C-alpha cells in the first residue's frame, strides 16, 4: 500500500513537473513566434501589424538614445521609418537568450543586422544587440519594451 501511494505520488509529481515544463515551452514558443511575426510584418512594411505586437504602454529606446512611448507612437514611428526606407532594405535578427522573470514576463536578448542600406561614409553601425521585455496579457504575449544597443568595449572612449 505504501509503495502504491509512493508510486502514485511520484507519478503525480512527474506529471506535475511535465505540465509545468510544457506550459513554459508553449509560452517560449509563443514568444519566439512574436519575433517571427515582427520580422514578417517588417518585411511587409506593415506598421499597423507591427504596432499590434506591442502592449498599449510599450516603449522603445534605440542605440542612439531616441525614445518612443505608447503603441500609437510606435506605429507612427514605423510609418515614418518605412517612408525613408529603401525597398531593398532587410532586417535580420536572432534570439540569443530567453529567460522568464515571472510566468507572465520574460526578457529576450538577440542580435540584429540590417542589409540593403545605402553606402555611407559615416560609419553607421548596421548590426547590434537588442533586448525586449515581453508580457503576457489576456493570454497573449506582447512586447512591453524594446532596447537596441551597440556594444562598446572598455576602456570607454566616449
Amino acid at each position, binding site marked *: 500500500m505504501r509503495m502504491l501511494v509512493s508510486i502514485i505520488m511520484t507519478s503525480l509529481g512527474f506529471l506535475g513537473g511535465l505540465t509545468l515544463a510544457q506550459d513554459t515551452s508553449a509560452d517560449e514558443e509563443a514568444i519566439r513566434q512574436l519575433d517571427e511575426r515582427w520580422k514578417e510584418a517588417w518585411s511587409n512594411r506593415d506598421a499597423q501589424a507591427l504596432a499590434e505586437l506591442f502592449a498599449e504602454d510599450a516603449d522603445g529606446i*534605440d542605440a542612439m*538614445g*531616441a*525614445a*518612443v512611448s505608447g503603441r500609437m507612437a510606435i506605429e507612427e514611428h514605423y510609418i515614418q*521609418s518605412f517612408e525613408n526606407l529603401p525597398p531593398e532594405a532587410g532586417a535580420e535578427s536572432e534570439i540569443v537568450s530567453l529567460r522568464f522573470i515571472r510566468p507572465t514576463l520574460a526578457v529576450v536578448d538577440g542580435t540584429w543586422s540590417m542589409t540593403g542600406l545605402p553606402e555611407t561614409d559615416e560609419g553607421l553601425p548596421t548590426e547590434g544587440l537588442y533586448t525586449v*521585455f515581453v508580457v503576457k496579457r489576456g493570454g497573449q504575449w506582447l512586447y512591453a519594451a524594446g532596447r537596441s544597443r551597440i556594444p*562598446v568595449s*572598455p576602456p570607454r572612449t566616449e
Partner: protein
Amino acid sequence: MLKPWCFISFLTFAAAVASVGCQPAGEVMEEAVTEESMEGALDASVQALADEYAAAWNAGDAEGIAALYTEDADSSGPDGEIYTGRQQIAEHYRELLEGPDVGTTISIRTTSSRELEPGVVLVNGGFEVTGSMGAEGEEMPPAKGLSTVILVQDGDTWRIASLRSWIPVKAPGTT
C-alpha cells in the same frame, strides 16, 4: 529630407524608437526625459535603490551592488555581455571596479517608471561615470549612458531582476 542616420532609428529590432524627425541623440535624450515623465511621481523606493547602487559603486563594493539583484537576475552593461545569477553579476562588477572603473564615481537618475504587472516595474534612467583613467593614465571624459531596469518587489524593497545599460552611439554627422 533623407538623412543617412535616420536609418539607425528603426534598426532597433523590436524597437521602436523614435525617428520622429530623426533628431540627434542628445536632443532626443532630453526629450525622452520629459516626454516619458509618466503619470504620477516616481516611487521614492525606486530612487532609493538607484542611490544604493550608486553608493555601492562609489565604494567599489561589487558584492553590495550584486546584493541589490535577485538571486537569478540577469544584467548586461555597455559591453553587451549578459551575466546571469547574483554570483556572476558580483564577479563582473568586481572585474569592473578593480579594473577599468576603479576609483570612478557613478551618478544615476531615474527618468520614468511604469508598472508592468503587480509587483513589477520597468524603470528608465540615465547614468554618468566620471573619473575613468585612459590607458596612459590620462583622465577620460565622463561616460554617459542609459539604462532600463526591471524591478520586482521583495517585501518592502525592490530588487533588480534584469538590467540593460548602454552608451548611446552618436548619430553620424553630429558632435
